């Protein structure tokens, strides 16, 4: 068993395990998962995941220890939490993105209002970090989002949405779909279109066109391969 903890402000993706580890999140992987996962080994090597504890694999069920495990990572500062740190980090990222965009002659350069809001919020955070809770930061991000609605660009809204989602522990995952077309129920569709008038664009392509040529070459290719 490998007990690991996230040691990067960005989430660590373990694609070959179809999993990810957020900053300070603790997870347990079996020896076989460790052996089979290149991503996990690489993340540990790069120290973006820290192994807190290694133990022998056990069969059957096991409990994941959810209490704080002493780790090589720094102890959180009083009044702050890993989530707050992640959000702060993201706000700073956004600030730098907006600053860089303000130099461009594109519609996305008009984000001064949003920048002012971010800076104001940062100042407050720096003065009194212990007083901040996550909902305040999320509220701030929503405000920024609404201010940007009219003139933002370059994916900033998506980034904000991502931050808010992540802070709540939600993530978008693409599910593997193993159904067959034959297994899907499709209701009958009844249409009453007695009074319809549809005009289509119609054109024709001569017989000596690329379709005939491609078909001939496709048949040649198929006959070679069989």
């Amino acid at each position, binding site marked *: 068993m490998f007990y690991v903890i996230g040691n990067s402000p960005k989430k660590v993706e373990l694609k070959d395990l179809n999993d990810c580890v957020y900053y300070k999140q603790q997870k347990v992987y079996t020896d076989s998962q460790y052996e089979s996962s290149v991503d996990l080994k690489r993340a540990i090597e790069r120290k973006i995941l820290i192994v807190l504890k290694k133990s022998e694999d056990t069969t059957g069920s096991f409990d994941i220890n959810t209490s704080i495990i002493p780790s090589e990572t720094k102890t959180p500062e009083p009044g702050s939490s890993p989530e707050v740190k992640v959000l702060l980090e993201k706000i700073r990222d956004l600030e730098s993105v907006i600053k860089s965009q303000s130099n461009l002659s594109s519609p996305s350069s008009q984000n001064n209002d949003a920048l002012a809001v971010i800076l104001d919020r940062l100042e407050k955070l720096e003065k009194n970090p212990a007083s901040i809770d996550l909902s305040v930061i999320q509220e701030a991000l929503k405000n920024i989002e609404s201010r940007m609605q009219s003139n933002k660009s370059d994916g900033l809204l998506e980034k904000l949405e991502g931050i808010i989602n992540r802070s709540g522990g939600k993530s978008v995952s693409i599910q593997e779909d193993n159904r067959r077309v034959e297994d899907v129920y499709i209701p009958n569709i009844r*249409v009453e279109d007695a009074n319809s008038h549809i005009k289509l664009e119609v*054109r024709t392509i001569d017989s000596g066109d690329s379709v005939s040529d491609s078909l001939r070459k496709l048949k040649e290719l198929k006959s070679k391969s069989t």
Partner: protein
Amino acid sequence: MAVGLDIGTCFLVSATKDIKNENASVEIKSIRDAFLDVEADQSILNMLKMSNVSYVQEKDFIYIVGEPALSIANLLKKEARRPLNQGVISSGEHDAEKMLVILLKNILSSPKVENESVFFSVPAKSIDKDMDIIYHEAIFKKIIESFGYKATAMNEAAAIVYANASSEGFTALASSFGAGMVNTALVFQTMVGMSFSVSRSGDWVDQSAAKAVGSTATRLMSIKEKGVNLLDPNEGDPKQLREREAIVVYYKNLIHYVIDSIKREFKKDNGKIELPDQIPWIISGGTAKAKNFLEFFKQEFEKERNSFPINISEIRMAADPLADVAKGLLIAAMND
């Protein structure tokens, strides 16, 4: 007869040919995949009849369909409705299903003989959005087969390779920039080695640019389709400069998003795909019809060429970006 049917977010396009007559011409039929519902009123009905606009009347509603749905929506400052959203139909969209049945019935007509072959396009699995591709494929199979055809699904981007890469032995990278999504496939001698779709494309450009300038996506689409020179947004009506600039910014963003996605997906399949030294990259789809899209694309690709995992011999536009998916499907249907 054999039919290739491209089911796109923006257009439904069919390509039909008589398989028994080699010299027969190919017939291309298309209609804008959009509709607008208005309350049934005799005066509106008369107006539509006089102006020869496509419509369907059902109970208390008139559905204006095709291209006029967009222009009338624009006039009424409304958004036209699309049967497909980001390349797929969702379950429970009853109006959309009905509209598709009507449009497909018109575009396919009736088969001349029983079980005529129709190859229809389906998107590849999305890598950035949870989409029910299986439902999408199943519902179209059922609709098409209800008309008396034998329906077979085929990857949209692979169809582009069938129509455009015969001289390369049907080996190419192809990307179809549709309205709802970009479909990409790496095809080696007709076999699909890697395929995926991303949920950003023309609609995303319209919506993002509309948000940026405080307008509607339909209006931005109209400006885009009137012609935006991607290499020089100053070209055109000075009153719409901001809109054109916004469109260019999001086109650029879209191109890099596709290039980055290919890099990531190819890395996942690395080692499994054997390719010749160099292969062409064929670009297609309505979103790629913007002025200077190809030059703009090449310009952006050159910035990424060194880190791009596939050796690209040339980037070229499909011969007929709006109809080549249907033509590729037709070729596959004729070879069936």
